[in-house]
């Protein structure tokens, strides 16, 4: 995470996400998948082929791509279908876009009710016998049962969570890095899924993104760094208020 300053002198914290060897693996049509839209399987981060059995290698062999650590699905409209085997780059996103980021949260292991659900616990003194971090009552008398989904101690973390509506501030095309506003679930160097935002406020925010994706054919020559309009670039002199 890094600080980033706007032209008015405000500071925002930014997370750096690196796009590492992403390839499109397979196209699944609407009828095949049984959903509302077509799906594209995308894999990220190369990994040695000896870590998993040969039977799982078929997708990668068809696409002609080295074995990937993670395979995710993206729901895609028919006009955004990409041929399997195309690499995906950070330039697929543009500064000013809004993005949802999904990742597995940091695993905390078996945790009690105070850390896991934020219960208040009991006072430390004034006669409490062996009860300082316990949940207390778990149901009422009339219910005569404990409801399903009751908040209780258990394994915390290591589940997929999404942070919605994160602004993309800057993109580095040379190293394939996306600068995303705020924090992102997961530990450092963990695998993350970045998707266009589904929030209704940001429906019309994407101004002419590369559609269906950014193909590095050499036709479009992008500068090494793409900045949002509001970012203070370090090549400018210091901020002055008129």
């Amino acid at each position, binding site marked *: 995470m*890094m*600080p980033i*300053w706007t032209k008015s*002198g405000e*500071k925002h914290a930014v997370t*750096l996400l*690196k796009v590492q060897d992403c390839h499109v693996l397979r196209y699944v049509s609407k009828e095949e998948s049984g959903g509302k839209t077509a799906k594209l399987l995308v894999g990220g981060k190369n990994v040695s082929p000896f870590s998993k059995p040969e039977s799982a290698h078929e997708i990668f062999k068809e696409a002609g791509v080295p074995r990937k650590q993670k395979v995710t699905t993206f729901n895609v409209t028919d006009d955004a279908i990409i041929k399997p085997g195309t690499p995906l780059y950070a330039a697929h996103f543009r500064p000013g876009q809004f993005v949802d980021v999904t990742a597995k949260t940091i695993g905390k292991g078996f945790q009690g009710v105070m850390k896991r659900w934020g219960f208040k616990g009991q006072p430390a003194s004034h006669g409490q016998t062996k009860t300082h971090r316990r949940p207390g009552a778990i149901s009422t008398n009339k219910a005569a049962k404990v409801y399903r989904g009751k908040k209780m101690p258990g394994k915390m973390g290591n589940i997929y969570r999404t942070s919605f509506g994160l602004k993309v501030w800057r993109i*580095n095309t040379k*190293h394939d*890095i996306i600068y995303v506003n705020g924090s992102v679930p997961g530990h*450092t*160097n963990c695998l993350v899924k970045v998707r266009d935002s589904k929030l209704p406020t940001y429906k019309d925010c994407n101004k002419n993104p590369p559609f269906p994706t950014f193909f590095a054919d050499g036709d479009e020559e992008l500068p090494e760094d793409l900045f949002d309009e509001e970012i*203070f670039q*370090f*090549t*400018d*002199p*210091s*901020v*002055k*208020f*008129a």
Partner: protein
Amino acid sequence: RVSSDGKPPKFQPPPKPVIIDRKTQKEEKRFLSPEFIPPRGRTDPLKYYIERKDMIQRRKVFNIPEFYVGHVLAVTTADPCASEKSKRFVGICIQRGGKGLGATFVLRNVIEDQGVEICYELYSPRIQAIEVLKLEKRLDENLMYLRDALPEYSTFDVNMKPVPRMAHEEIPVNKLQVRMKPKPWSKRWERPKYNIKGIKFELPEHKMKAAQKWSQPWLEFDMLREYDTSKIEEKIRKELSEELEK
């Protein structure tokens, strides 16, 4: 040489000595701002490389002088609320923290009997000028104990004129022993954990001995805590010198 007039020969002064400043060049190259050194951790070094590129960009446009804890600095920042839209603050640097772009330094001064500390970010675009008024290192790297010292040690004149640096010599170390206000202090500065050499402790002997109970003499031999930055520093220095010359 005998002149034709018969007067004594005109005094010819000896030729001026040519001073070759080899030491200064070496010293300037040797100073590396502490925020460039990456902390120990599992982050990808690519992140630090990209951050350093941004830091170098900013340093090319705006001059960040070499300064240590104990120097007296004057910082001018842009402020929309102030008249003339800029604020100037003079103070002694008590702490330099943070790594990378978020590096900060805290300036302390006592203005009209009120102690004021302001934490500035080195790379913030609001900062318009940093001037070093007085160059002097202290015995410690963290002068937080000035909060519990007598206010005279933290007062600096707001209109102080910059003291000129004497011929690029080594930065002088001020071995001042500061006198403290009566206890309680914000932290127990007599404890060996803080390792402070710049305070004149006027506490009784038995209290100083009792404070030594918290000493951890095994820490200096702990090999897992060692973080040898010499090689990293050399690489970063090379990178910096190359980029700044461009």
